[in-house]
């Protein structure tokens, strides 16, 4: 088997990463929303950064799942 062959386990990994990242993104944004409701802007900013990191993970996982444009 060549090094770039996609095994079933490897094929599942980007989907797993995407689910994890989307999960972190969704929950982080909920925290941001609730913090803003409470006018806790400092914490809202913290979790916005959290959400941004999760968003980057989402993008990366999505790129792994999407075939490159020709």
């Amino acid at each position, binding site marked *: 088997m060549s090094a770039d062959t996609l095994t079933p386990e490897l094929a599942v990994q980007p989907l*797993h990463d995407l689910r*994890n990242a989307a*999960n*972190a993104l*969704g929950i982080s944004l*909920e925290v941001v929303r*609730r913090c803003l409701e409470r006018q806790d802007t400092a914490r809202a900013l913290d979790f916005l950064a959290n959400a941004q990191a999760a968003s980057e993970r989402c993008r990366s996982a999505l790129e792994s799942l999407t075939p490159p444009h020709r």
Partner: protein
Amino acid sequence: MSRLLIVDDDREFAAAAATLAEQEGFEVTIAATLADARQRLGDARFDLLLLDLQLPDGHGLDLLHEVDLIPHGRIVVVTGNPTLESAMRAVTEPVIEYLVKPIDPDRWLDMLRETQRIQPLASDLQLMRTGLLGRSQVVRETVATLLRIAPTDASVLITGESGTGKELAAHTLHTASDRSGEFIAINCGAIPSEVAAHELFGYELASYSVAGGRQINVFDRAINGTLFLDEVTEMPPALQVYLLRAIEATAMTRADPGADAPPRVVAATRHDPQQAVAEGRLREDLYYRLADVIVPMAPLRDRDEDAVLLARAFIDRLNARYGKRKRLARGAERVLLRHLWPGNVRELLSAVQRAYLLENDDAIAVLPAPSPSDAINETDTTLVFSIGMTLADIERRMLLKTLSHFKNDKTAAARSLGISVRTVHNQLARLAKEPSGQEPPSIQRGQERHA
């Protein structure tokens, strides 16, 4: 304050989920590895465990076999990699939810709030530990109380109708107390008074020899253990004073911290103890000595849908014993929930066993036995109706009894009931289409059923 343990190596998710939980009033601990989680679970008790399946040092479900989960509350599994294998594993574990990421924040918040709401109640794991079957709120409250007072030295008086599980509750107190001694049960209502006196306090008739020749009584036998006095209000008042003295003497003589612990006394009665005191059947001083804590056992009729759960559990046990695959018949649930079960769990068990052994079909219709008092009071021309029966039941029984009285002459029965013959036919047709898919038992068996 409720306590939450999040076991997940996804830092962003764990931090956000923890913050939401903190905003809901939880005290939160985060563990990023199985090893860390193992240590945290050993150090503290958690009301909710959120467990990721893919962790850097192993599979999340392995954790459930490595730690004692009894002290902990609910377990929720969450995964970004759902597989049939892990889902199948999860259903065999005490897991209440198997969530696939991304989880809905509202679902997470609902789960947190639900945990807070049921926190004073016993968890499924705690119920399993006691052997008390049931999931109703009242049973969970009782079990939570039993487990809370089990490690203490408080005397406990368990009240409740016959068949409600008083001895099982007493046994739960004993096993959850971690007392090393024996559980000794005495039925105060069944022992002749003289024998009872010697069994409880004496050193002659029914006492037991030990190696050194000294004779021991039940208080000695239950040292470091539990002495269960069932039906204590049935004990002749003359003996009650001796019981009181024995309890107090045992407590005083073994008060030395280094000595053996005196037996924990747990008493039970099916009567109202305060009424028994008022009527002179229970000494007031003994009542106060026995009843540091009173634990009432709920009758089955007050336990929501536990009758169905219990019936299924009993059938499962019988299936295991006889190697069969019988099940509860369609429509039987309605009968189980409608009956008042005056004999409580004991009556239900008897009804299930009877149906299991007598019915040839694999689908069992569990029917309560006719009440002996009803059989006495009913005649060929009278019926006994009791509170708890529905109007539909009453109408049905009246119709069938009248038909039986008139030897199935529908015209005569209709005239007697003041309805048309067509109505009689319609009613019988309706009864034949009851949800069980069978004829009504009273038609099928030629005898009427206590409803």
